[in-house]
């Protein structure tokens, strides 16, 4: 066994990277819930989670434990026990899978004697893979709604199936606009194609020539993830909770984890397709060289904020915990100054910073916009987004073909 492993170090490396990515993703999902609750609370002049840990930072952990100790109910009259249990499993597994092909940075590093990059898998049809896997997510929703054999889940499942497939068209057509400019399906090459600047200062990101596609993609992405203002599948006022009404304990949590993982995937994809992925927004000249230290400086600032908090909090445990977090962040800030880490951290830093911006927009829209009416929702998707995206493809392809000849 050990001999076989030593002959195939790349498999071990792949397994390690996959494990790390899943861990990071699940943590990100948990803290996305915290971030959303906190941000919406502040938008509505509330404090949000504040009791469990400093600033409610341990809230996701407490929520998880609560879900764990809840009763696992399986209805007596479910259509099929297998499908009923399979639906949350499928939702979560697919939502996690979509991130596997996302490249987080251009640099390569050495691990266990194998040269490898900041990705789990680098395939030449990465974009197609992400689109395929995220669109399979509709199965989880439909199977859950159908197998519950209850009226609210059935209606919720039907609605979200119709909604997701409708907006998927707008999503795909918007992607075609980017593909026309990039000429490749590999996510890594799409990002590389966006390097450089126009007129010396404007980055060559696809968002500028493809603004219409960007708007279509982002709106359709919000609709794909069943988020407000497109959250009709789980419209609380009419459908209780939509397709997951009949799910309890961690099975219920799994649908939520899948939803948040989808939000993160969509944000990553928007960043990679339209905002230059891991590329820095600053020009690549000596004058802007100091921006390399941004990851370290920002971590240090965060550490200082926590340090100040450690003296202001009244709860003894929270003070200790805050101090520990501060120490950890300070250590990370110093680590990021190391020459290797400095280079390696550039890509992930910019990618995640831009992704964080879109996560913010996701939560912001939820706090701001009311829900669509169902016929408005379908009309918006089919009569506005799809024609707009097709028109964009038409115009872009004309320009691209004209320049090619």
């Amino acid at each position, binding site marked *: 066994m050990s001999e076989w492993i030593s002959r195939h170090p790349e498999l071990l490396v*792949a397994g390690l990277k*996959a494990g790390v990515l*899943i861990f990071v993703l*699940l943590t990100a999902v948990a803290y996305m819930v915290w971030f959303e609750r906190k941000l919406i609370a502040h938008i509505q002049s509330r404090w949000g989670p504040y009791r469990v840990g400093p600033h409610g930072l341990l809230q996701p952990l407490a929520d998880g434990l609560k879900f*764990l*100790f809840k*009763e*696992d*109910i*399986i*209805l*007596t009259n479910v259509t099929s026990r297998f499908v009923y249990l399979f639906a*949350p*499993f499928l939702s*979560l*597994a697919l939502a*996690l*899978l979509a991130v*596997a*092909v996302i490249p987080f940075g251009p640099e390569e590093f050495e691990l266990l004697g194998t040269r490898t990059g900041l990705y*789990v*898998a*680098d*395939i030449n049809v990465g974009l197609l893979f992400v689109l395929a896997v995220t669109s399979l997510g509709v199965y989880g929703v439909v199977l859950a709604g159908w197998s519950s*054999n*209850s*009226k*609210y*889940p059935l209606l919720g499942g*039907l609605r979200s*199936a*119709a909604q997701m*497939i*409708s907006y*998927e*068209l707008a999503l*795909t*057509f918007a992607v*075609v606009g980017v*593909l*026309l400019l990039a*000429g490749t399906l590999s996510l890594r090459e799409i990002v590389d194609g966006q390097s450089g600047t126009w007129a010396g200062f404007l980055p060559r990101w696809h968002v500028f020539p493809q603004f219409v596609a960007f708007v279509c993609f982002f709106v359709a992405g919000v609709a794909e993830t069943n988020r407000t203002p497109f959250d009709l599948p789980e419209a609380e006022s009419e459908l*209780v909770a939509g397709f997951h009404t*009949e799910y309890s*304990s961690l*099975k219920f949590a*799994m649908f939520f984890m899948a939803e948040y993982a989808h939000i993160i995937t969509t944000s990553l994809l928007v960043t990679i397709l339209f905002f230059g992925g891991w590329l820095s927004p600053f020009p690549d000249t000596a004058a802007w060289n100091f921006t390399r230290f941004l990851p370290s400086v920002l971590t240090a600032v965060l550490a200082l904020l926590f340090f100040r908090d450690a003296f202001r909090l009244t709860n003894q445990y929270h003070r200790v915990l805050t101090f520990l977090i501060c120490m950890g962040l300070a250590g990370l800030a110093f680590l990021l100054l190391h020459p290797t880490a400095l280079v390696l951290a550039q890509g992930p830093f910019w990618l995640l910073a831009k992704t964080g911006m879109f996560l913010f927009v996701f939560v912001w829209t939820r706090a701001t916009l009311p829900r669509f009416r169902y*016929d408005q929702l*379908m*009309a918006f998707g089919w009569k506005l987004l799809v*024609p707009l995206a*097709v028109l964009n*493809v038409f115009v872009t*392809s*004309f320009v*691209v*073909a*004209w320049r*090619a*000849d």
Partner: protein
Amino acid sequence: MNQNYLSSYVPILIYFLLAMGVAGAIMLLSWLIGPRKPTPTKLSPYECGMLPTGDAREPFSVKFYLVAILFILFDVEAMFLIVWAVVLRQLGMYGFIIMSIFLFLLMVGFVYEWKKGVLDWAPRQSRRG
């Protein structure tokens, strides 16, 4: 080449196995740790606290089928477009004109559906308000 091509998918397989393991472990955990005190009412479908009436297997709007059919048409077209978009630079104006004809035919069908009211969710007379 073939060896290389397939080997780039092996990490995805490993990743998927891990993801399925995580999802399976979560389901198993909640099954093992959660308490189990079933009552007939608890195990019946939720209908806002009332006794459930009838079965959930009831006819639903045919609109959902129409949307599904439209989706298949457009999604197949999207598949064509993706392949075409990647190589348009090599095809040049010829590729653009060919695809324009295809898009035009498709849009004619789309406008026809639109005018026939397939895309209107509510019936026209009830939308006065």
